[in-house]
């Protein structure tokens, strides 16, 4: 995978950004139920209720089938595609014991070690400049 093929950006805001999903109104409208569920995970009791019966908890928040599948598969890119916002999804990932580096690895198709090594390599490269 090529990280950030940062060719000079075309002028104007219309050009998409590689591998980047801006959480705009369209995404927000699609993802409200999923994000509302994730927001509830600020409370420990809700995290426990989710762990005790994941499907029932998802149903209570009215997740659609795309969101249900993404949650069942622990697939972060699919959650984002279904309207999830990373700030809220991180709380769900936390329940699964995943930190932002685990999540980064999953989304980029790397192992966690590869993902960490990629970041360290960027640090070394920046230091060489």
């Amino acid at each position, binding site marked *: 995978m090529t990280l950030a093929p940062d060719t000079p950006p075309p002028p104007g805001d219309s050009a998409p950004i590689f591998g980047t999903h801006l959480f*705009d109104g369209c995404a927000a409208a699609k993802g409200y139920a999923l994000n509302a569920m994730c927001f509830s995970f600020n409370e420990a009791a809700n995290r426990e209720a989710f762990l005790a019966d994941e499907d029932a908890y998802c149903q209570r928040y009215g997740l659609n089938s795309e969101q249900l599948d993404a949650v069942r598969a622990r697939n972060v890119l699919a959650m984002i595609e279904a309207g999830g916002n990373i700030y809220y999804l991180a709380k769900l990932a936390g329940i699964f014991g995943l930190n932002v580096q685990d999540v980064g690895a999953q989304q980029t198709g790397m192992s966690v070690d590869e*993902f960490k090594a990629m970041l360290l390599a960027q640090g070394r490269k920046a230091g060489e400049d």
Partner: protein
Amino acid sequence: MAQIIGGYFTSHVPAIGGAIVRGDQEEPYWKPFFDGFPPVREWLEAERPDVAVCFYNDHGLNFFLDKMPTFAVGAAHEYRNEDEGWGLPLFKSFAGHPDLSWHIIEQLVGDEFDVTTCQSMLVDHALSIPFELAYPEAQEWPLKLVPIAINTVQYPLPSAKRCLALGRAVHRALVSWQGAEKIVVIGTGGLSHQLDGERAGFVNPDYDRFCMDSLAANPEAICVDSTKEIVRKSGSQGVEILNWIAARGALGAAPARETHRNYHIPISNTAAATMLLETT
């Protein structure tokens, strides 16, 4: 008359909280980041500010999509941290400074900033970690807080230009404040990083260097880009530079003096930076 002593700017990566709790400051992975703080601490010990005006972004602790403000100004007597859901340590509470908060709010609304006022407000790691880094020994925070939250969650985000203007309006409020306090300004977040999407792990040292080089004397240079262009250059969470820009604005339009800088890749997924700017 109040005195604005300057400001410090720092990343607020959640993992820093874990490293502090574990005492990992001297571990090889963490040391290059924590080594950025002694100059900030020495400066704060010498200056002993009474109030902090802190620009940050909430990560889904206090604000949800039902009421998502572009700019929110705290006006509470106390600000508590609470469980954010990922096993972060609970951070200490802050005493507010409601009189100064309202003075700032009057200035902002008078200057046509359409703020949301928050008389009860939880603050998350993005606000607490910069204080943990600057006052590692504190049993309780030695200064009062005025928190100002900038939306980096729900697009459309405010432009960098608008954030700089917000900060400058806060500066006008601080200049006209009749109290005798010493005031420190704090900007938290960034620098380049991206948590979500196929580009996760993206950092951009060239852009970060441009931002750091511009901050003291020419913050307008960072404000030329649209928010989306900033995301392109800085990553989807690199857009937290908006907090730095607003905080820089609160130091006033005159050039500031950069007295310290630290930059290190990576902390977690982030190009981490710490800067100290003094007013001249």
